[in-house]
């Protein structure tokens, strides 16, 4: 059941993304993108990851609002310009080559949501995820194992992720400052 729903959602998201790419109107492109984002949130919910779904859905709605506002305010409503046939052809060929490798790997070698392949052949080894579930509470004191992993076992990664966000914001603030250059003062 979950698999069918996931497949349906994926197809829906692909169609919405294509629509966003192809449509000449900025507003409908923004709305289609919003549909893609909501699809992702539903996927998270289906996979029982509310910790990921909550922020995602909120951010999606916010971004959608902003995009719609931006699309309405601009006088330019359509995107024009010729598409580069040669570039598109090269991209398509590369994409096909990549798909030729990716499709068999994902359809045959790896099954979705299953245990790592290596763990199936070596059942005697305890995986990190099993350790988190069995000992997470007693070792970290955090009843929510997701938080235990995020902030205790892999807190260093979380610090890094917060830093990525910080760098992005700082970069945006830097690029939008009113005046970038100033004349040199000669001494």
């Amino acid at each position, binding site marked *: 059941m979950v698999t069918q729903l996931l497949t349906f959602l994926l197809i829906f998201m692909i169609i919405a993304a294509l629509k966003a790419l192809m449509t000449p109107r900025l507003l409908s492109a923004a709305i289609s993108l919003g549909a893609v984002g909501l699809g992702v949130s539903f996927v998270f919910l289906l996979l029982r990851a*509310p*910790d990921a779904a*909550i*922020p995602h859905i*909120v*951010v999606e709605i*916010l971004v959608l*609002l*902003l995009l719609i*506002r*931006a699309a309405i305010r*601009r006088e330019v409503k359509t995107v024009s310009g010729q598409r580069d046939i040669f570039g598109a052809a090269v991209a398509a060929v590369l994409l096909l080559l990549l798909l030729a490798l990716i499709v068999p790997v994902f359809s045959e070698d790896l099954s979705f949501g299953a245990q790592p392949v290596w763990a199936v052949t070596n059942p005697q080894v305890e995986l990190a995820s099993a350790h988190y579930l069995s000992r997470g*509470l007693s070792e*970290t*004191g*955090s*009843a*929510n194992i*997701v*938080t*235990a992993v*995020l*902030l*205790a076992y892999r*807190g*260093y990664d*979380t*610090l890094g992720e*917060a*830093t990525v*966000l*910080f760098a992005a*914001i700082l970069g*945006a*603030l830097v690029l*939008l*400052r*009113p005046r970038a250059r100033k004349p040199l003062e000669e001494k």
Partner: protein
Amino acid sequence: MTGMTVIVKTITRWTAALIFLYGAYLVLYGHLSVGGGFAGGIILACSYVIMILAYGGKETIHALPKAVAARLDSIGALAFLILASLGMFGGFFFSNWIRDIWPGQQFRVFSAGIIPLANIAIALKVCVSLFLIFFILASLRMTRKGDKIEFRSEEVD
């Protein structure tokens, strides 16, 4: 009159604080049930963002000006780093030194040492970051001078 109609404003007035409380709950109970600093921080930011959307920029911006927001951003990130660095005294970077001293009781608020504190620091950081993203995008103006197009940020109207 800036902002949207009286209906939107009133509903915002009714709900903004509720959203804020829910965000605070997600942050403070992040180590106990679903939630955490990232999710909670985003929802905290939402309570500000809907106020900007409903009331227009001028009303809300002076409550949290850009310069202050940028500072809080740094401070939130720094607080997380300091929490982690203080772990050096417990032996390792990121070691849970508060829990070593005072373990607390499982399934209660004060139980996981630095984890709730780290959640609060992340929430502050994420909340202010998202607010800044919104601010930057909302205040972006495109100006044309001949064939030169410039994007500049201005005060929100």
